[in-house]
């Protein structure tokens, strides 16, 4: 692990669909699912990304173009040097008989988790929701597991929201743990359902993790004040209970939280 900056050439690029790619780097560190790295495009900026796989020293980062930085990554190619610091934070703890719920590109860390769960011969069900077929990543690979998919426009899997499918699955089966990652509105619904059935959860949250090493304070959560970059990004129900800002607009780069007007 290196919190210092190291640059590595891109070894492989896979385009899942337009504006949705995986980038691969050879690494000497080890990581657990749910941890993240800081990715530096020299001369541009540095942003946090969760790890979508790390096996045999090959690190995979899956990126969806949603803004200037991620747009810029789309034009990076084989051999380009990017900076990687990490891995950072606390990841998922392995539990048998789990339900994995991913929303859109948020499913990326759960894919890494699924690979580790499968390797350790744990039972799990993987549920992914997306807006449309193009936003569903790893569907071919995930179909070897007990895999369910929903899309809001009905172009792939079952039409509707992933939380509706989760409701159906939870009505039939019981689970020892719920893992989730995705948009915060989805996570809130996932937590409600988990709590209603008293199922423990491990959820990956997102904030502006600027330094990744617990110093800058940008990702501190209101309430308990935990630093998401070192105390998370994966939080259990005990940690979530102390936080008062879930569902609120995130603090921006100045540290201001946008107020409702």
């Amino acid at each position, binding site marked *: 692990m290196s919190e210092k900056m190291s640059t590595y050439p891109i070894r492989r690029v896979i385009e899942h669909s337009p504006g949705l790619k995986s980038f691969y780097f050879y690494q000497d560190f080890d990581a657990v699912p749910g941890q993240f790295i800081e990715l530096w495009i020299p001369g541009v900026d540095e942003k946090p990304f969760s790890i979508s796989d790390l096996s045999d020293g090959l690190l995979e980062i899956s990126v969806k173009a949603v803004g200037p930085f991620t747009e810029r990554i789309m034009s990076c190619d084989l051999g380009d040097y990017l900076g990687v610091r990490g891995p950072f934070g606390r990841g998922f703890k392995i539990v048998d008989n789990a339900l994995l719920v991913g929303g859109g590109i948020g499913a990326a860390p759960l894919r890494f988790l699924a690979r580790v769960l499968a390797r350790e011969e744990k039972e799990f069900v993987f549920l992914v929701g997306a807006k449309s077929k193009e936003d569903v990543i790893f569907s071919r690979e995930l179909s070897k597991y007990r895999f369910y998919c929903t899309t809001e426009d009905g172009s792939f899997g079952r039409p509707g929201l992933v939380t509706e499918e989760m409701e159906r699955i939870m009505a039939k089966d019981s689970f020892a743990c719920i893992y989730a990652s995705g948009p915060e509105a989805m996570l809130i619904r996932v937590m409600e359902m988990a709590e209603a059935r008293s199922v423990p959860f491990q959820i990956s949250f997102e904030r502006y993790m600027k330094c990744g090493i617990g110093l800058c304070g940008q990702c501190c959560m209101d309430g308990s004040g935990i630093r998401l970059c070192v105390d998370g990004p994966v939080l259990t129900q005990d940690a979530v209970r102390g936080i008062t800002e879930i569902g609120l607009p995130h*603090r921006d780069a100045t540290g201001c939280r946008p107020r409702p007007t």
Partner: protein
Amino acid sequence: MTERQTDIEIEFLHMRLCSPLVLASGVLGLSSSSLKRVADAGAGAVTTKSCGLEPRAGYVGPSIIPVSHGMLNAVGLSNPGVKEMVREVADYRARCRTPIFVSIFGGTVEEFGDVAEAVAQAEPDLIELNVSCPNVYSEFGSPFGADIDATAAITRRVKQRVGAIPISVKLTANCLSIGQTAKVCEQEGADALTAINTIGPGMLIDLNVRKPVLSNLCGGLSGPAILPVAVRAVWEISREVSIPIIGTGGVTTAEDALQMILAGATAVGIGSGIYYQGLEIFDKVNEGVQRFLQEKGLGSLDEIRGTAHE
């Protein structure tokens, strides 16, 4: 509130701090919840991130990078602006009794006065003047702290506008004589001094892309590498002034903190040390200082403060 280690308590200005350790400005100081967490971790007082008149996003990443024996940072004074900071301080006050210091910066002498007056509404226990950020050269030019007259003018102006709230001037070691600068601050009415800010600035170049890593190209150096410079600075200041000093720079252990006290510091700042030791640094250093006092049969830090000069 639980009573903790009473014999490492210190008297600082008119406050009684349960520990000599103060969270240094720039680290974990953006929100009331984060500051409270540091207070709960064992700090005797906490300092906010420096705030200015308006919100600032600061520089893009990378802005904080560990290097051998230290840390380079050029965050670019990102802050939510003084209005928002006043709200955070009020919220902190409602939830936590540990003293809170608010750090401020300005682009001109007048602006320092304006920010200070606005911050005074929150009635912080102390206002710290960041005249020494080394990372905003292109915007503000060379730090005021390197210029003894500018530092004096800011101290005077702020003192006029904050009423009874004590002020501390955060000094840089990047100046001709930090002792002389400190003396002038004392003459202009400073109630305390904080020394030192990050030094340098320094630069890290990546060999593959052959470019500086920090987006600002260079950044202030903090961490263990700068401890000896900070101890020397506190020593020099302590010879020139009688107001209390918050000795800051590279402290990661109880031994480091004790060096600061021996050099003449009343309180000891902790910033980058949190990276090296986690938030447990406050408990660890408090315990180490306590143990030292017990082993040497000392009642309080007053008995050793500044004694390295004797």
